[in-house]
Protein backbone atom coordinates (compact mmCIF):
# COMPACT_ATOMS: atom_id res chain seq x y z
CA UNK A 1 0.00 0.00 0.00
CA UNK A 2 1.88 2.98 -1.20
CA UNK A 3 -0.60 5.33 0.27
CA UNK A 4 0.30 8.74 1.41
CA UNK A 5 1.80 8.42 4.84
CA UNK A 6 1.29 11.70 6.55
CA UNK A 7 4.54 13.09 7.83
CA UNK A 8 2.86 13.69 11.15
CA UNK A 9 2.04 10.04 11.45
CA UNK A 10 5.59 9.15 10.59
CA UNK A 11 7.00 11.58 13.10
CA UNK A 12 4.78 10.29 15.88
CA UNK A 13 5.60 6.69 15.02
CA UNK A 14 9.27 7.55 14.88
CA UNK A 15 9.14 9.21 18.24
CA UNK A 16 7.29 6.33 19.85
CA UNK A 17 9.55 3.73 18.29
CA UNK A 18 12.71 5.49 19.34
CA UNK A 19 11.39 5.95 22.84
CA UNK A 20 10.55 2.27 23.18
CA UNK A 21 13.82 1.25 21.60
CA UNK A 22 15.70 3.48 24.00
CA UNK A 23 13.93 2.02 27.01
CA UNK A 24 14.62 -1.51 25.86
CA UNK A 25 18.19 -0.79 25.04
CA UNK A 26 18.77 1.26 28.16
CA UNK A 27 20.15 -1.47 30.42
CA UNK A 28 22.80 -2.30 27.84
CA UNK A 29 23.56 1.33 27.20
CA UNK A 30 23.79 2.03 30.88
CA UNK A 31 26.08 -0.91 31.33
CA UNK A 32 28.44 0.40 28.67
CA UNK A 33 28.31 3.89 30.13
CA UNK A 34 29.01 2.59 33.60
CA UNK A 35 31.97 0.63 32.34
CA UNK A 36 33.52 3.93 31.34
CA UNK A 37 33.09 5.46 34.78
CA UNK A 38 35.26 5.36 37.84
CA UNK A 39 33.96 3.22 40.66
CA UNK A 40 32.69 6.06 42.87
CA UNK A 41 31.04 7.63 39.84
CA UNK A 42 29.35 4.37 39.08
CA UNK A 43 27.31 4.36 42.24
CA UNK A 44 26.69 8.07 42.39
CA UNK A 45 23.25 7.93 40.81
CA UNK A 46 22.07 8.28 37.24
CA UNK A 47 24.63 9.98 35.13
CA UNK A 48 24.68 9.31 31.45
CA UNK A 49 27.94 11.07 30.78
CA UNK A 50 30.83 9.04 32.13
CA UNK A 51 34.34 10.28 32.53
CA UNK A 52 35.37 7.93 29.74
CA UNK A 53 38.06 6.27 31.72
CA UNK A 54 39.25 2.89 30.62
CA UNK A 55 40.62 2.02 34.03
CA UNK A 56 37.96 -0.62 34.62
CA UNK A 57 38.85 -2.38 31.42
CA UNK A 58 42.48 -2.32 32.34
CA UNK A 59 41.67 -3.69 35.78
CA UNK A 60 39.51 -6.41 34.32
CA UNK A 61 42.13 -7.50 31.85
CA UNK A 62 44.72 -7.50 34.59
CA UNK A 63 42.68 -9.70 36.79
CA UNK A 64 41.60 -12.14 34.17
CA UNK A 65 42.91 -12.51 30.68
CA UNK A 66 40.10 -11.83 28.26
CA UNK A 67 41.43 -13.38 25.09
CA UNK A 68 41.62 -16.98 26.09
CA UNK A 69 37.99 -17.30 27.17
CA UNK A 70 37.04 -15.21 24.19
CA UNK A 71 38.74 -17.66 21.84
CA UNK A 72 37.16 -20.53 23.69
CA UNK A 73 33.75 -18.98 23.25
CA UNK A 74 34.34 -18.45 19.57
CA UNK A 75 35.58 -21.97 18.99
CA UNK A 76 32.86 -23.61 21.02
CA UNK A 77 30.01 -21.54 19.64
CA UNK A 78 31.10 -21.85 16.03
CA UNK A 79 32.16 -25.44 16.35
CA UNK A 80 28.99 -26.67 17.96
CA UNK A 81 26.89 -24.79 15.45
CA UNK A 82 28.74 -26.24 12.51
CA UNK A 83 28.63 -29.77 13.82
CA UNK A 84 24.95 -29.39 14.59
CA UNK A 85 24.34 -28.14 11.07
CA UNK A 86 26.19 -31.04 9.52
CA UNK A 87 24.12 -33.51 11.46
CA UNK A 88 20.89 -31.60 11.15
CA UNK A 89 20.85 -30.84 7.44
CA UNK A 90 20.42 -34.46 6.33
CA UNK A 91 17.92 -35.08 9.09
CA UNK A 92 15.90 -32.03 8.18
CA UNK A 93 16.13 -33.01 4.53
CA UNK A 94 14.61 -36.36 5.19
CA UNK A 95 11.90 -34.93 7.42
CA UNK A 96 10.95 -32.26 4.94
CA UNK A 97 11.11 -34.25 1.75
CA UNK A 98 10.37 -37.74 2.82
CA UNK A 99 7.95 -37.27 5.65
CA UNK A 100 6.18 -40.12 7.34
CA UNK A 101 3.35 -40.17 9.78
CA UNK A 102 5.97 -40.08 12.51
CA UNK A 103 7.85 -37.04 11.32
CA UNK A 104 5.90 -34.54 13.39
CA UNK A 105 6.19 -36.71 16.45
CA UNK A 106 9.91 -37.18 16.03
CA UNK A 107 10.31 -33.45 15.69
CA UNK A 108 8.30 -32.75 18.78
CA UNK A 109 10.19 -35.41 20.65
CA UNK A 110 13.45 -33.78 19.63
CA UNK A 111 12.25 -30.44 20.88
CA UNK A 112 11.09 -32.00 24.10
CA UNK A 113 14.56 -33.32 24.87
CA UNK A 114 15.42 -29.69 25.41
CA UNK A 115 12.99 -29.54 28.26
CA UNK A 116 15.08 -31.91 30.35
CA UNK A 117 16.35 -29.98 33.38
CA UNK A 118 20.08 -29.80 32.97
CA UNK A 119 20.99 -29.90 36.65
CA UNK A 120 19.20 -33.20 36.99
CA UNK A 121 21.75 -34.86 34.75
CA UNK A 122 24.78 -32.82 35.73
CA UNK A 123 26.40 -35.38 37.97
CA UNK A 124 26.02 -38.33 35.60
CA UNK A 125 27.37 -36.22 32.81
CA UNK A 126 30.19 -34.91 34.87
CA UNK A 127 31.20 -38.47 35.64
CA UNK A 128 30.98 -39.47 31.99
CA UNK A 129 33.09 -36.51 31.07
CA UNK A 130 35.61 -37.26 33.76
CA UNK A 131 35.98 -40.84 32.64
CA UNK A 132 36.30 -39.98 28.98
CA UNK A 133 38.75 -37.21 29.59
CA UNK A 134 36.45 -34.63 28.06
CA UNK A 135 36.34 -32.52 31.16
CA UNK A 136 37.59 -29.02 30.53
CA UNK A 137 38.18 -29.56 26.83
CA UNK A 138 36.82 -27.56 23.94
CA UNK A 139 35.77 -30.77 22.27
CA UNK A 140 33.69 -31.77 25.25
CA UNK A 141 31.89 -28.46 25.42
CA UNK A 142 31.39 -28.42 21.68
CA UNK A 143 29.77 -31.83 21.90
CA UNK A 144 27.46 -30.79 24.68
CA UNK A 145 26.38 -27.59 22.98
CA UNK A 146 25.86 -29.45 19.74
CA UNK A 147 23.50 -31.82 21.45
CA UNK A 148 21.73 -29.06 23.28
CA UNK A 149 21.10 -27.04 20.16
CA UNK A 150 20.54 -29.87 17.75
CA UNK A 151 16.76 -30.03 18.23
CA UNK A 152 16.36 -26.34 17.52
CA UNK A 153 18.61 -26.57 14.49
CA UNK A 154 16.73 -29.53 13.09
CA UNK A 155 13.43 -27.85 13.69
CA UNK A 156 14.43 -24.57 12.11
CA UNK A 157 15.99 -26.21 9.10
CA UNK A 158 12.96 -28.39 8.71
CA UNK A 159 10.69 -25.39 8.52
CA UNK A 160 12.97 -23.77 5.96
CA UNK A 161 13.31 -26.86 3.85
CA UNK A 162 9.61 -27.33 3.71
CA UNK A 163 9.40 -24.01 1.89
CA UNK A 164 11.65 -25.26 -0.86
CA UNK A 165 9.70 -26.82 -3.68
CA UNK A 166 10.39 -30.51 -3.94
CA UNK A 167 10.42 -30.18 -7.70
CA UNK A 168 13.82 -28.58 -7.60
CA UNK A 169 15.29 -31.55 -5.81
CA UNK A 170 13.56 -33.83 -8.24
CA UNK A 171 15.02 -31.84 -11.07
CA UNK A 172 18.46 -32.39 -9.58
CA UNK A 173 17.71 -36.07 -9.30
CA UNK A 174 16.70 -36.20 -12.92
CA UNK A 175 19.85 -34.31 -13.76
CA UNK A 176 21.83 -37.16 -12.34
CA UNK A 177 22.71 -35.78 -8.94
CA UNK A 178 23.26 -38.33 -6.22
CA UNK A 179 21.68 -37.76 -2.87
CA UNK A 180 24.72 -36.01 -1.51
CA UNK A 181 24.93 -34.00 -4.73
CA UNK A 182 21.34 -33.02 -4.29
CA UNK A 183 21.96 -31.80 -0.77
CA UNK A 184 25.31 -30.19 -1.35
CA UNK A 185 24.74 -28.52 -4.70
CA UNK A 186 21.08 -27.71 -4.60
CA UNK A 187 19.39 -27.84 -1.24
CA UNK A 188 22.04 -26.24 0.91
CA UNK A 189 22.78 -23.28 -1.34
CA UNK A 190 19.11 -22.67 -1.82
CA UNK A 191 18.48 -22.66 1.88
CA UNK A 192 21.37 -20.33 2.58
CA UNK A 193 19.27 -17.61 4.16
CA UNK A 194 17.60 -20.13 6.40
CA UNK A 195 20.80 -21.88 7.24
CA UNK A 196 22.48 -18.57 7.94
CA UNK A 197 19.71 -17.56 10.23
CA UNK A 198 19.77 -20.90 12.01
CA UNK A 199 23.49 -20.59 12.35
CA UNK A 200 23.29 -17.12 13.82
CA UNK A 201 20.61 -18.07 16.26
CA UNK A 202 22.60 -21.04 17.40
CA UNK A 203 25.81 -19.16 17.73
CA UNK A 204 23.94 -16.77 19.97
CA UNK A 205 22.42 -19.55 22.02
CA UNK A 206 25.73 -21.38 22.28
CA UNK A 207 27.61 -18.24 23.17
CA UNK A 208 25.20 -17.48 25.96
CA UNK A 209 24.88 -20.99 27.33
CA UNK A 210 25.88 -20.64 30.92
CA UNK A 211 25.16 -23.91 32.60
CA UNK A 212 27.28 -26.58 31.00
CA UNK A 213 30.04 -24.27 29.90
CA UNK A 214 30.46 -23.17 33.46
CA UNK A 215 30.43 -26.63 34.95
CA UNK A 216 32.26 -28.84 32.54
CA UNK A 217 35.21 -26.56 31.99
CA UNK A 218 37.54 -25.13 34.56
CA UNK A 219 40.38 -23.35 32.87
CA UNK A 220 41.59 -24.58 29.53
CA UNK A 221 38.24 -24.53 27.80
CA UNK A 222 36.40 -22.01 29.93
CA UNK A 223 34.53 -19.53 27.76
CA UNK A 224 33.28 -16.03 28.49
CA UNK A 225 30.49 -17.22 30.74
CA UNK A 226 33.21 -18.28 33.15
CA UNK A 227 34.97 -15.00 32.61
CA UNK A 228 31.92 -13.12 33.75
CA UNK A 229 31.48 -15.43 36.72
CA UNK A 230 34.77 -14.23 38.10
CA UNK A 231 33.47 -10.70 38.33
CA UNK A 232 30.00 -11.17 39.58
CA UNK A 233 30.56 -10.14 43.19
CA UNK A 234 33.97 -9.39 44.49
CA UNK A 235 34.68 -7.28 47.50
CA UNK A 236 34.34 -3.56 47.45
CA UNK A 237 33.12 -1.26 44.79
CA UNK A 238 32.80 -3.13 41.55
CA UNK A 239 29.97 -1.66 39.45
CA UNK A 240 32.31 -0.23 36.85
CA UNK A 241 34.50 -3.31 36.66
CA UNK A 242 31.48 -5.54 36.49
CA UNK A 243 30.12 -3.41 33.67
CA UNK A 244 33.40 -3.53 31.86
CA UNK A 245 33.60 -7.29 32.15
CA UNK A 246 29.99 -7.63 31.09
CA UNK A 247 30.54 -5.37 28.14
CA UNK A 248 33.52 -7.42 27.09
CA UNK A 249 31.57 -10.64 27.44
CA UNK A 250 28.62 -9.61 25.31
CA UNK A 251 30.30 -7.24 22.88
CA UNK A 252 31.40 -9.81 20.31
CA UNK A 253 28.03 -11.47 20.04
CA UNK A 254 26.21 -8.16 20.18
CA UNK A 255 28.25 -6.78 17.34
CA UNK A 256 27.86 -9.94 15.35
CA UNK A 257 24.14 -9.76 16.00
CA UNK A 258 23.94 -6.18 14.83
CA UNK A 259 25.77 -6.83 11.63
CA UNK A 260 23.97 -10.02 10.79
CA UNK A 261 20.61 -8.77 11.95
CA UNK A 262 19.40 -8.62 8.38
CA UNK A 263 20.33 -12.27 7.74
CA UNK A 264 18.72 -13.30 10.97
CA UNK A 265 15.51 -11.59 10.01
CA UNK A 266 15.62 -12.68 6.40
CA UNK A 267 16.01 -16.26 7.43
CA UNK A 268 13.17 -16.01 9.85
CA UNK A 269 10.79 -14.64 7.27
CA UNK A 270 10.90 -17.74 5.17
CA UNK A 271 10.33 -20.73 7.26
CA UNK A 272 9.48 -20.57 10.87
CA UNK A 273 6.69 -18.10 10.65
CA UNK A 274 5.34 -18.39 7.17
Amino acid at each position, binding site marked *: MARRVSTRH*KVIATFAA*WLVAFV*IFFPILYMVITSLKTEPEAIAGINLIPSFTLESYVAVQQQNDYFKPFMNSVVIALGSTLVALI*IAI*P*AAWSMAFSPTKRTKD*ILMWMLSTK*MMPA*VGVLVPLFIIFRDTGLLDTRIGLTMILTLINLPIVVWMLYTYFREIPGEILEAARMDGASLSGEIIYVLTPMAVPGIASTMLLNIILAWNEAFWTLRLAAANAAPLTAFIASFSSPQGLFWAKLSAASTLAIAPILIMGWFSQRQLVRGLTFGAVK
Partner: protein
Amino acid sequence: MATRQTRTLARFMMAPAVVLLLIWMIVPLSMTIWYSFQNYNLLNPMTRGFAGWSNYVYFYTDPAFYQAIGNTLMLVGGVLFITVVGGILLALLLDQPIFGQGIVRILVISPFFVMPPVAALVWKNMIMHPGYGVFADISRFFGLQPVDWFAQYPLFSIIIIVAWQWLPFATLILLTALQSLDEEQKEAAEMDGANFLNRFWYLTLPHLARAITVVILIQTIFLLAVYAEILVTTNGGPGYASTNLAFLIYRTALLSYDVGGASAGGVIAVILANIVAIFLMRAVGRNLDR
Protein backbone atom coordinates in the same frame (compact mmCIF):
# COMPACT_ATOMS: atom_id res chain seq x y z
CA MET B 1 9.88 -37.68 -4.36
CA ALA B 2 9.18 -40.82 -2.68
CA THR B 3 10.64 -43.89 -4.16
CA ARG B 4 11.56 -46.81 -1.96
CA GLN B 5 15.15 -45.94 -2.51
CA THR B 6 14.89 -42.36 -1.34
CA ARG B 7 12.74 -43.34 1.58
CA THR B 8 15.36 -45.76 2.77
CA LEU B 9 18.02 -43.17 2.29
CA ALA B 10 15.92 -40.70 4.18
CA ARG B 11 15.73 -42.94 7.20
CA PHE B 12 19.45 -43.35 6.96
CA MET B 13 20.07 -39.62 6.85
CA MET B 14 17.90 -38.98 9.82
CA ALA B 15 19.67 -41.60 11.82
CA PRO B 16 22.62 -39.58 13.13
CA ALA B 17 20.47 -36.85 14.57
CA VAL B 18 17.94 -39.24 16.00
CA VAL B 19 20.50 -41.62 17.40
CA LEU B 20 22.55 -38.84 18.93
CA LEU B 21 19.55 -37.29 20.55
CA LEU B 22 18.36 -40.67 21.71
CA ILE B 23 21.68 -41.28 23.37
CA TRP B 24 21.70 -37.78 24.71
CA MET B 25 18.31 -38.39 26.16
CA ILE B 26 18.52 -42.00 27.23
CA VAL B 27 21.96 -42.20 28.76
CA PRO B 28 21.68 -39.30 31.16
CA LEU B 29 18.02 -40.00 31.73
CA SER B 30 18.56 -43.60 32.64
CA MET B 31 21.46 -42.61 34.84
CA THR B 32 19.23 -40.05 36.43
CA ILE B 33 16.55 -42.60 37.02
CA TRP B 34 19.13 -44.97 38.45
CA TYR B 35 20.48 -42.34 40.80
CA SER B 36 17.01 -41.30 41.80
CA PHE B 37 16.69 -44.64 43.52
CA GLN B 38 20.05 -44.34 45.21
CA ASN B 39 21.15 -42.72 48.38
CA TYR B 40 23.93 -40.68 46.95
CA ASN B 41 25.27 -37.50 48.38
CA LEU B 42 28.42 -36.32 46.73
CA LEU B 43 29.76 -35.05 50.00
CA ASN B 44 29.04 -38.29 51.79
CA PRO B 45 30.19 -41.02 49.47
CA MET B 46 30.02 -43.53 52.31
CA THR B 47 26.28 -43.69 52.47
CA ARG B 48 25.60 -45.07 49.00
CA GLY B 49 22.85 -47.59 48.71
CA PHE B 50 19.41 -48.36 47.41
CA ALA B 51 16.94 -45.77 48.52
CA GLY B 52 13.61 -46.97 47.23
CA TRP B 53 11.18 -44.14 46.70
CA SER B 54 12.62 -42.09 49.50
CA ASN B 55 14.27 -39.61 47.15
CA TYR B 56 10.98 -38.98 45.44
CA VAL B 57 9.15 -38.64 48.71
CA TYR B 58 11.84 -36.31 49.92
CA PHE B 59 11.68 -34.11 46.86
CA TYR B 60 7.95 -34.17 46.69
CA THR B 61 7.54 -33.27 50.34
CA ASP B 62 9.96 -30.39 50.07
CA PRO B 63 8.08 -27.43 51.52
CA ALA B 64 9.09 -25.51 48.42
CA PHE B 65 7.78 -28.08 45.96
CA TYR B 66 4.32 -26.78 45.27
CA GLN B 67 5.39 -23.22 45.36
CA ALA B 68 8.15 -24.05 42.92
CA ILE B 69 5.66 -25.53 40.50
CA GLY B 70 3.44 -22.52 40.91
CA ASN B 71 6.38 -20.22 40.40
CA THR B 72 7.47 -22.12 37.33
CA LEU B 73 4.07 -21.70 35.78
CA MET B 74 3.91 -18.06 36.81
CA LEU B 75 7.30 -17.41 35.36
CA VAL B 76 6.59 -19.12 32.08
CA GLY B 77 3.11 -17.65 31.83
CA GLY B 78 4.16 -14.18 32.87
CA VAL B 79 7.06 -13.99 30.50
CA LEU B 80 5.00 -15.41 27.66
CA PHE B 81 2.26 -12.92 28.33
CA ILE B 82 4.60 -9.95 28.41
CA THR B 83 6.63 -11.01 25.42
CA VAL B 84 3.69 -11.94 23.24
CA VAL B 85 1.62 -8.87 24.00
CA GLY B 86 4.65 -6.60 24.06
CA GLY B 87 6.02 -8.27 20.98
CA ILE B 88 2.83 -7.71 19.04
CA LEU B 89 2.67 -4.07 20.05
CA LEU B 90 6.32 -3.55 19.25
CA ALA B 91 6.01 -5.34 15.96
CA LEU B 92 3.06 -3.15 15.03
CA LEU B 93 5.06 -0.10 15.94
CA LEU B 94 8.15 -1.17 14.05
CA ASP B 95 6.05 -2.06 11.04
CA GLN B 96 5.16 1.60 10.64
CA PRO B 97 7.29 3.75 8.41
CA ILE B 98 9.71 5.48 10.75
CA PHE B 99 12.96 7.32 10.47
CA GLY B 100 15.97 5.23 11.33
CA GLN B 101 14.12 1.94 11.21
CA GLY B 102 17.31 -0.08 10.97
CA ILE B 103 18.82 1.40 14.09
CA VAL B 104 15.63 1.09 16.05
CA ARG B 105 15.42 -2.55 15.14
CA ILE B 106 19.00 -3.14 16.18
CA LEU B 107 18.38 -1.48 19.52
CA VAL B 108 15.25 -3.46 20.12
CA ILE B 109 16.76 -6.86 19.41
CA SER B 110 19.94 -6.24 21.38
CA PRO B 111 18.82 -7.78 24.68
CA PHE B 112 18.55 -11.12 22.93
CA PHE B 113 22.30 -11.24 22.54
CA VAL B 114 23.02 -10.68 26.21
CA MET B 115 23.96 -13.78 28.13
CA PRO B 116 21.58 -14.52 31.00
CA PRO B 117 24.05 -14.00 33.85
CA VAL B 118 25.06 -10.64 32.46
CA ALA B 119 21.47 -9.61 31.99
CA ALA B 120 20.68 -10.58 35.54
CA LEU B 121 23.74 -8.82 36.92
CA VAL B 122 23.03 -5.63 35.07
CA TRP B 123 19.40 -5.55 36.09
CA LYS B 124 20.18 -6.48 39.63
CA ASN B 125 22.97 -4.04 40.26
CA MET B 126 22.35 -1.17 37.95
CA ILE B 127 18.65 -1.05 37.31
CA MET B 128 16.71 -2.56 40.19
CA HIS B 129 19.14 -2.10 43.05
CA PRO B 130 17.29 -0.35 45.88
CA GLY B 131 20.27 1.85 46.63
CA TYR B 132 22.13 2.50 43.40
CA GLY B 133 19.74 1.32 40.73
CA VAL B 134 18.26 3.54 38.10
CA PHE B 135 14.75 2.77 39.34
CA ALA B 136 15.73 3.86 42.80
CA ASP B 137 17.20 7.08 41.43
CA ILE B 138 14.00 7.72 39.54
CA SER B 139 11.88 7.05 42.62
CA ARG B 140 13.99 9.37 44.66
CA PHE B 141 13.69 11.99 41.97
CA PHE B 142 9.93 11.87 42.44
CA GLY B 143 10.35 11.86 46.17
CA LEU B 144 9.27 8.27 46.59
CA GLN B 145 10.77 5.51 48.67
CA PRO B 146 12.80 3.28 46.35
CA VAL B 147 11.37 -0.18 45.89
CA ASP B 148 13.48 -3.13 46.90
CA TRP B 149 12.48 -5.15 43.91
CA PHE B 150 14.06 -8.44 44.70
CA ALA B 151 12.80 -8.46 48.26
CA GLN B 152 9.32 -7.14 47.65
CA TYR B 153 8.49 -8.56 44.22
CA PRO B 154 11.08 -11.23 43.61
CA LEU B 155 9.24 -13.33 41.08
CA PHE B 156 7.90 -10.32 39.26
CA SER B 157 11.39 -8.85 39.05
CA ILE B 158 12.71 -12.05 37.54
CA ILE B 159 9.83 -12.14 35.12
CA ILE B 160 10.75 -8.62 34.05
CA ILE B 161 14.36 -9.54 33.47
CA VAL B 162 13.57 -12.70 31.57
CA ALA B 163 10.88 -10.97 29.57
CA TRP B 164 13.38 -8.27 28.67
CA GLN B 165 15.68 -10.92 27.29
CA TRP B 166 12.99 -12.66 25.27
CA LEU B 167 11.00 -9.70 24.07
CA PRO B 168 13.32 -9.18 21.11
CA PHE B 169 12.90 -12.75 19.96
CA ALA B 170 9.13 -12.46 20.07
CA THR B 171 9.23 -9.09 18.38
CA LEU B 172 11.47 -10.33 15.64
CA ILE B 173 9.34 -13.34 14.81
CA LEU B 174 6.11 -11.42 15.06
CA LEU B 175 7.45 -8.57 12.99
CA THR B 176 8.48 -10.84 10.18
CA ALA B 177 5.14 -12.57 10.35
CA LEU B 178 3.41 -9.24 10.27
CA GLN B 179 5.30 -8.26 7.18
CA SER B 180 4.22 -11.43 5.44
CA LEU B 181 0.56 -10.48 5.79
CA ASP B 182 -0.88 -10.29 2.33
CA GLU B 183 -1.18 -6.67 1.31
CA GLU B 184 -4.30 -7.41 -0.68
CA GLN B 185 -6.01 -8.83 2.37
CA LYS B 186 -5.40 -5.64 4.25
CA GLU B 187 -6.75 -3.65 1.34
CA ALA B 188 -9.76 -5.88 1.06
CA ALA B 189 -10.52 -5.31 4.69
CA GLU B 190 -10.08 -1.61 4.19
CA MET B 191 -12.53 -1.69 1.32
CA ASP B 192 -14.86 -3.64 3.55
CA GLY B 193 -14.91 -0.75 5.95
CA ALA B 194 -12.70 -2.19 8.67
CA ASN B 195 -10.88 0.43 10.70
CA PHE B 196 -7.46 -0.06 12.21
CA LEU B 197 -8.69 -1.88 15.29
CA ASN B 198 -10.97 -4.11 13.28
CA ARG B 199 -8.22 -4.96 10.88
CA PHE B 200 -5.96 -5.80 13.78
CA TRP B 201 -8.52 -7.96 15.49
CA TYR B 202 -9.98 -9.77 12.53
CA LEU B 203 -7.03 -9.94 10.20
CA THR B 204 -3.66 -9.30 11.78
CA LEU B 205 -4.14 -11.28 14.95
CA PRO B 206 -5.39 -14.44 13.25
CA HIS B 207 -2.59 -14.11 10.75
CA LEU B 208 -0.10 -13.95 13.59
CA ALA B 209 -1.50 -17.07 15.21
CA ARG B 210 1.17 -19.31 13.79
CA ALA B 211 3.99 -16.98 14.69
CA ILE B 212 2.62 -16.63 18.19
CA THR B 213 2.59 -20.40 18.38
CA VAL B 214 6.21 -20.56 17.41
CA VAL B 215 7.09 -17.95 19.99
CA ILE B 216 5.20 -19.79 22.70
CA LEU B 217 6.68 -23.13 21.79
CA ILE B 218 10.29 -22.05 21.62
CA GLN B 219 10.14 -19.76 24.59
CA THR B 220 8.43 -22.32 26.78
CA ILE B 221 11.27 -24.71 26.14
CA PHE B 222 13.76 -22.16 27.33
CA LEU B 223 11.67 -20.65 30.08
CA LEU B 224 11.08 -23.94 31.82
CA ALA B 225 14.82 -24.10 32.32
CA VAL B 226 15.42 -20.57 33.62
CA TYR B 227 17.73 -20.65 36.58
CA ALA B 228 20.75 -18.42 35.98
CA GLU B 229 18.70 -15.27 36.43
CA ILE B 230 17.34 -16.57 39.72
CA LEU B 231 20.72 -17.69 40.92
CA VAL B 232 22.27 -14.33 40.28
CA THR B 233 19.48 -12.18 41.64
CA THR B 234 17.42 -13.72 44.41
CA ASN B 235 18.84 -17.17 44.91
CA GLY B 236 15.28 -18.41 44.94
CA GLY B 237 14.18 -16.24 47.81
CA PRO B 238 13.19 -14.59 49.91
CA GLY B 239 11.76 -17.75 51.36
CA TYR B 240 10.79 -19.72 48.29
CA ALA B 241 9.18 -16.76 46.60
CA SER B 242 11.26 -17.06 43.44
CA THR B 243 12.21 -20.70 43.49
CA ASN B 244 11.11 -22.48 40.37
CA LEU B 245 11.45 -26.14 39.63
CA ALA B 246 14.74 -25.81 37.83
CA PHE B 247 16.15 -23.82 40.68
CA LEU B 248 14.83 -26.22 43.27
CA ILE B 249 16.65 -29.03 41.54
CA TYR B 250 19.67 -26.84 41.25
CA ARG B 251 19.57 -26.19 44.96
CA THR B 252 19.33 -29.85 45.72
CA ALA B 253 22.05 -30.79 43.30
CA LEU B 254 24.62 -28.09 43.75
CA LEU B 255 24.05 -26.78 47.21
CA SER B 256 23.23 -29.97 49.02
CA TYR B 257 25.09 -32.14 46.50
CA ASP B 258 22.28 -34.56 46.97
CA VAL B 259 22.52 -36.47 43.72
CA GLY B 260 19.74 -38.85 44.63
CA GLY B 261 17.32 -36.12 45.57
CA ALA B 262 18.24 -34.01 42.59
CA SER B 263 17.83 -36.96 40.28
CA ALA B 264 14.40 -37.63 41.67
CA GLY B 265 13.65 -33.96 41.12
CA GLY B 266 15.00 -34.24 37.61
CA VAL B 267 12.73 -37.16 36.87
CA ILE B 268 9.76 -35.31 38.28
CA ALA B 269 10.68 -32.27 36.22
CA VAL B 270 11.01 -34.36 33.08
CA ILE B 271 7.57 -35.76 33.68
CA LEU B 272 6.11 -32.32 34.33
CA ALA B 273 7.89 -30.86 31.32
CA ASN B 274 6.45 -33.59 29.19
CA ILE B 275 3.00 -32.90 30.52
CA VAL B 276 3.50 -29.27 29.60
CA ALA B 277 4.88 -30.34 26.25
CA ILE B 278 1.97 -32.60 25.46
CA PHE B 279 -0.45 -29.94 26.56
CA LEU B 280 1.40 -27.42 24.46
CA MET B 281 1.49 -29.61 21.38
CA ARG B 282 -2.18 -30.37 21.68
CA ALA B 283 -3.22 -26.82 22.26
CA VAL B 284 -0.85 -25.18 19.93
CA GLY B 285 0.81 -27.74 17.71
CA ARG B 286 -2.14 -27.82 15.39
CA ASN B 287 -1.32 -24.27 14.47
CA LEU B 288 2.04 -25.38 13.22
CA ASP B 289 0.70 -27.45 10.38
CA ARG B 290 -0.87 -25.61 7.57
